[in-house]
């Protein structure tokens, strides 16, 4: 089919020098030439030079514009998307020259672009007889068939044309429709074209594409319900259609549906869509395709599509509080990210992303007291950034909490390698040390004192020392209780037995021994006081010391 531009030809100029033309024409106008054609030529030279504002200003100076001047004003306004001005000028051009096909066609196009379907149809009715060729006439008839009012019966001729249009005609029609800038118009026309040509792949692709763009606009405006309303029937149509489109269209629809559902706080429904997206991708993955098919699975930053789909699933599960399932998805997500580390752009993007997420998840799982999973995420973060001190520190505390002393010691060694002279690492060593007996507690306190002397006025040391001592107080209480029960046991027996049956030398020996033990306990409690910052702990220790004092007196009296 001949293009309308071929029919209404403009004689080509061999390599026009628009700059020189502008220079000379400007001189002519400046010298006083106000001839409409002179100004028109200058305006056209401006237009071809890419100066539409100057072109429009020059055309506006023409005193008595003819049809073509109005047409050019309209074209320039149309290109600037100033539809009202464009429509006004095209209408005037048509008024001046009722036989002008370009003026009428452009007016119809402008009305389509502004969504004035009825007016466009009205113009189209008058436009068809003006068509400069049978091919153009046929094209416009097809367009009229598409534009027909909803419910209005299309003529037999229109139906015939719609079902028999050639690939070129269809492409031209699609190009025109897609460029209309009005979603409602574009969608309506494409829907009609698709129902007239159910097996046309380009028409169906354009139809789905237009809906996807509109849905994305709705998502971008956070209009979640509207996006779902548009996408849900579209998904059904896409899945039931005989025309097979690119799988990524379906994945995009499902991703948007899932996101919209989650943003509407229906995470369960979001999960259903995200699962369907993952399945659609899996099907596409398993389908044979060109050698470079896998290239599109990785974006410019190096993120694999599988990672994105897993991330969506993980986030939805996380929101539902299904942390075990979320963990499985996150693990797959990290595996994909780590696999593509070498393709990361910028080079550290994927590493940073994986690290930030692993750290966040470690926090999240710790808060939920899922220590094992939290430790696994921290281990992953540590693998990504082996020298990150904060991660090592958190990992150390995690292992300590989980009583994984050997792992904690390994992390401690690594901490010392990363920061050889850091008092924190020395203090961490004290934390992993087992202190159940009094002499172990005493040794720990001695080391704590040594570290405090080595790093004087270091608040971190003071704080950490206070925390360690705070944890020691219950141990000292427990030891004091043990001692008390031992003393009480002896005293009970002494009360029950007659004096002659009591083995006084043994009693004295035991009491002497207990007195020594209490003295030691008291010394250790005193040592603790040096590191205490909290009033509660200090009170606890003073109570323990008083208790020791009483017991020492008791043991002493019994030992005499």
């Amino acid at each position: 089919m001949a293009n309308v531009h071929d029919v209404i030809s403009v004689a080509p100029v061999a390599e026009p020098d628009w700059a020189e033309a502008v220079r000379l024409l400007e001189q002519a106008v400046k010298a006083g030439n106000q001839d409409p054609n002179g100004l028109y030529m200058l305006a056209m030279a401006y237009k071809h030079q890419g100066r539409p504002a100057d072109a429009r200003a020059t055309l506006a100076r023409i005193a008595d514009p003819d049809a073509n001047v109005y047409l050019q004003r309209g074209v320039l306004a149309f290109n600037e998307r100033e539809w009202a001005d464009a429509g006004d000028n095209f209408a005037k051009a048509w008024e001046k020259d009722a036989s002008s096909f370009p003026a009428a066609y452009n007016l119809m196009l402008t009305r389509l672009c502004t969504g004035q379907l009825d007016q466009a149809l009205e113009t189209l009715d008058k436009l068809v007889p003006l068509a400069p060729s049978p091919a153009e006439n046929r094209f416009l008839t097809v367009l009229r068939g598409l534009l027909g009012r909803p419910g209005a019966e299309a003529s037999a001729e229109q139906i015939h044309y719609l079902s028999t249009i050639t690939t070129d005609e269809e492409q031209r029609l699609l190009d025109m429709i897609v460029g209309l800038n009005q979603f409602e118009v574009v969608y309506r026309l494409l829907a009609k074209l698709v129902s007239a040509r159910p097996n046309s792949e380009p028409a169906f692709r354009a139809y789905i594409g237009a809906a996807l763009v509109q849905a994305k606009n709705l998502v971008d405006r956070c209009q979640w319900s509207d996006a779902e309303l548009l996408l849900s029937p579209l998904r059904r149509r896409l899945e039931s259609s005989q025309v097979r489109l690119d799988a990524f269209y379906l994945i995009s629809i499902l991703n948007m549906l899932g996101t919209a559902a989650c943003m509407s706080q229906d995470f369960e429904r979001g999960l259903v869509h995200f699962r369907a997206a993952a399945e659609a991708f899996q099907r596409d993955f398993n389908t044979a395709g060109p050698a470079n098919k896998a290239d599109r699975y990785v974006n410019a930053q190096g993120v694999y599509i599988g990672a994105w789909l897993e991330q969506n699933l993980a986030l939805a599960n996380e929101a539902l509080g299904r942390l075990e399932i979320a963990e499985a998805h996150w693990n797959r997500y990290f595996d994909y990210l780590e696999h593509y580390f070498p393709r990361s752009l910028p080079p550290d993007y994927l590493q940073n992303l994986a690290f930030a997420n692993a750290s966040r998840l470690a926090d999240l799982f710790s808060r939920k007291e899922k220590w094992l999973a939290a430790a696994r995420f921290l281990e992953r973060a540590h693998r990504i950034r082996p020298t990150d001190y904060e991660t090592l520190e958190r990992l150390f505390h995690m292992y300590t909490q989980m009583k994984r002393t050997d792992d904690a010691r390994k992390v401690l060694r690594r901490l010392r390698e990363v920061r050889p002279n850091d008092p924190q690492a020395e203090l961490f060593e004290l934390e992993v040390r087992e202190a159940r007996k009094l002499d172990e507690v005493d040794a720990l306190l001695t080391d704590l004192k040594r570290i405090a002397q080595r790093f004087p006025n270091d608040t971190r040391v003071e704080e950490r020392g206070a925390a360690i001592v705070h944890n020691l107080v219950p141990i000292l209480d427990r030891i004091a209780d043990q001692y008390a029960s031992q003393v009480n046991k002896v005293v009970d027996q002494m009360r029950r037995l007659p004096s002659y049956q009591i083995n006084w030398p043994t009693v004295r020996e035991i009491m002497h021994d207990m007195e020594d033990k209490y003295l030691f306990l008291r010394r250790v409690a005193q040592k603790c006081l040096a590191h205490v910052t909290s009033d509660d702990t200090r009170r606890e220790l003073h109570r323990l010391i008083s208790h020791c004092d009483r017991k020492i007196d008791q043991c002493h009296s019994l030992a005499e």
Partner: protein
Amino acid sequence: MPPPNTPVVLQLAPLPRTQIGPFLILGVDKDASKEVIEAAWAEKIKQARRGAIKTPLEDINWAREMLSSKESRIRCDAVAFNVDTTDGTLKKLKERYQGKTQVEVRCKPIDTEKWLADYVPPTPVPTVEEIRGIVQIPEIPREVPAVRVMLEDFVEERIDPWKVELDA
């Protein structure tokens, strides 16, 4: 008071902005450049002021702030849902349907220009004779000092007999 058996409609509180994330609030891709983010932010601010969107202004500003530093952007990326595919299906479609050059490329008006190759400006151009007729040569008065100087120069100039060119 509503009639009995009327279902009570509970309205959910909107999701916190941290759960929506800055990418969805501004409607930008995860790999969006700084310029794109700034443009999206400006557009959203306009829309919010016009009441075209429900997103609060402070959330829009927060989203821009979150995406302005590398660290916070990465953290937000980690908890953001993915709408598009890795080959940018939606991005390409949007460019195709609503891109800058979309109207010029796809929905072109018919642009016909007047044929003015034979154009002659309507300015009257006089002939040489007419111009000669118009120009009046002034008579040089004898008393003009230049005449005397010119004659003196002519008289004082030495004549080289070998270089004298005679008219044919």
